[in-house]
């Protein structure tokens, strides 16, 4: 545990300086009648420079991780290697749990195998990495083979955390997938057992001419592709927990109806339709139930049916629109939704049988809730001062269910709507219209604390939905 010993000394220094500051405070206050000799000595030493103030390590630090450039075994693997390196670095940076070592600070020699690894070089300044990811990539027997290693640079005795081989046909897309897999393995080992999201997908609405189609892409915005070709207005896609079905709402001859698209078959499958406007489907975490808003009885209420649209039952019954349900993904026994029963739309939660209705927001105009994977939070779009001439606008907020306390995640970037949690609960994807115009909507992602915002798509995209895994 040499590395830890080193870490301890750093912390000891921090602790000591804290102690000095604390002792100083104690001396200044003169509130304790008994001071040990040591404290007095430390206090006088600190009093010599009266202006300094020490604040140490707020919160737990993130792991400093270095991603070495992979070594290309064969010359024809070079383009794949570049894709792999770039994707791996982007994935690890986006994970939100690492303090990534900049590529300009890493040692020049790229180690391909643990034998070539000189950990001292990586753990010392300027890289100062606690963990190093490295490996080699090559084309063998017509397969792209990447060997990935993760080493603990502080543990000189047993550095290796894991070693894994990734294989696939040699093309650029596969090189990216292999990098995603390696990144996910690293995040899983170092992220406290939460699986990475590098292989997850985002489904969204794309404006194609006058129609709106459902599209899909990788979590980082790559590989954008069309899924439906209906030539209709299709909105609010929701992917099933097993990634096999997409439920969405489509405007046809009978108004808005729920449609079900099978990603395995590549076509629409049966979903029973009845009259009225049917909107905003939401999957229960077991994949056996679908909640949606339906006005088949005249008033928009929340209904729950099975994935074929059968056995539909109403669970809200109160005058005023009830829309945008979202299940508690952790328990599957609660539903959050937006209700206009008191006037402006507000966020409510209830048990999945319709009992225990609780209002969460106290005013403003709330829309499109999304329940976090750990069940603790709901993200939603909220215009807190709604009305003509009111300051502010529609932004993304996160509320803790238990305490009803909330934080605002977006500020002054234009109208934001449709937040959706990533499966690891560390990211939120949302739609943003910088100038407030619908046609300029784009999809952005950020960490769940509101940092690290970046756009994934160009204008004309809307209503993102992050897959469950």
């Amino acid at each position, binding site marked *: 545990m040499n590395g830890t010993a080193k870490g301890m000394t750093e912390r000891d220094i921090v602790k000591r300086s804290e102690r000095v500051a604390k002792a100083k405070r104690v001396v200044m206050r003169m509130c304790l009648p008994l001071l040990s000799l040591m404290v007095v000595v430390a206090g006088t030493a600190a009093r010599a420079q009266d202006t300094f103030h020490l604040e140490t390590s707020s919160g737990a630090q993130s792991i400093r991780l270095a991603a070495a450039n992979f070594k290309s075994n064969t010359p024809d693997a070079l383009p794949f290697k570049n894709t792999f390196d770039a994707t791996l670095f982007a994935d690890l940076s986006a994970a939100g749990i690492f303090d990534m070592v900049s590529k300009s600070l890493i040692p020049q020699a790229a180690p391909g195998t643990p*034998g070539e690894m000189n950990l001292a070089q990586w753990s010392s300044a300027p890289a100062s990495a606690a963990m190093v990811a490295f490996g080699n990539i090559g084309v063998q027997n017509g397969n792209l083979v990447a060997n990935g290693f993760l080493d*603990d640079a502080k543990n000189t005795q*047993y550095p290796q955390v894991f070693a894994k081989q990734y294989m696939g046909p040699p093309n650029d897309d596969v090189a990216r997938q292999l990098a995603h897999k390696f990144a996910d393995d690293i995040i899983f080992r170092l992220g406290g057992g939460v699986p990475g999201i590098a292989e997850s997908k985002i489904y969204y609405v794309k404006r194609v001419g006058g129609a709106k189609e459902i599209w899909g892409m990788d979590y980082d915005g790559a590989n954008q592709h069309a899924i439906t070709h209906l030539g209709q207005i299709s909105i609010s896609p929701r992917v099933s927990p097993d990634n096999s079905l997409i439920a969405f709402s489509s405007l046809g001859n009978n108004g808005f109806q729920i449609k079900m698209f099978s990603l395995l078959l590549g076509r629409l499958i049966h979903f029973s339709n009845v009259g009225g406007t049917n909107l905003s489907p939401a999957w229960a975490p077991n994949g056996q139930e679908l909640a949606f808003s339906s006005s088949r009885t005249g008033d928009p209420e929340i209904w729950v049916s099975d994935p074929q649209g059968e056995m539909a039952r109403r669970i809200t019954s109160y005058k005023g629109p009830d829309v945008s349900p979202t299940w508690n993904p952790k328990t599957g026994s609660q539903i959050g939704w937006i209700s206009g029963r008191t006037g402006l739309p507000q966020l409510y939660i209830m048990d999945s049988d319709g009992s225990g209705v609780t209002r969460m927001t106290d005013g403003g105009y709330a829309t499109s809730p999304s329940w976090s994977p750990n069940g603790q939070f709901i993200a939603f779009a909220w215009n807190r001062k709604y009305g003509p001439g009111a300051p502010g606008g529609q932004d993304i907020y996160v509320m803790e269910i238990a305490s009803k306390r909330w934080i605002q995640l977006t500020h002054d970037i234009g109208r934001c709507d449709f937040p959706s949690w990533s499966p690891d609960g560390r990211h939120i994807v949302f739609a943003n219209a910088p100038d407030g115009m619908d046609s300029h909507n784009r999809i952005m992602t950020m960490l769940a604390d509101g940092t690290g915002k970046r756009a994934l798509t160009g204008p004309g995209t809307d209503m993102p939905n992050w897959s469950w895994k």
Partner: protein
Amino acid sequence: MRPDDQDDKFGSGVAGAIGLHVVLAGVFVAVAMFAHTSSAHWGENASSVGAIQASMVSAIPLPQKFKPVEKSVLAPDQASPAPVPPPKEAVAPPPRPTDILIKNKNLPKKVGPVETPAPPKHPQPTPPTAKAQTGQSADQLPQSTTQMKNGTATATVQDRTFGNRYAYYVQQVSQKVAQNWYTYEVDPKTSQGKRTTIVFDIERDGSPANVRLLTSSGSPTLDTSAMRALQRVDGFGPLPAGNQITVEYTFDYKQQ
């Protein structure tokens, strides 16, 4: 010549000799008495001694006795038995000069030199030996400390071999619990430096189990906040090895 003249000379000579001897004796006595007070002497209690020095002590400074470390090869409770000398090989008596030696027909075939296997390219970690190294690490436990704004959290894994081999995992456990410790749950009247220790097991799949309070801090809110921190954790990620480890976690409260 008068005999008296000779007598007189004899008397003064004797007196002179006696006087000389007395002076010499006095000089010796004086040297013996005063000369040794000025310089150090052999065997004296000086700071730098030439040879052996003996001083009275109340006890003999023997090396400190350490408690036998569990699962350690060295430092056992009982002394190991003295090694048995190897049995003597039976040696054939030397051939007599009259004997005619018969060639052994069943000589073993000559085998070519065995190639030494190439050392593995991957650096092999030396297997963990529970041997205590001289003078160190006998009581050193693998632990990881996470500094927080409002306290310190220290995780100690009781299985030393695991902690050394998978230091990153211990670090992670420490961090994850620290992240889930909400110090605002602690009553702000709790006095400085209170600490509570929680013991829990981590199962093979990484889920915490069997969470229990080992040492109460005396502040119920601090104890509860520590227990809650563990209850918020769903899992630490599957164990890299083994079926279960036991972790001792100390929460050190410090006022802001």
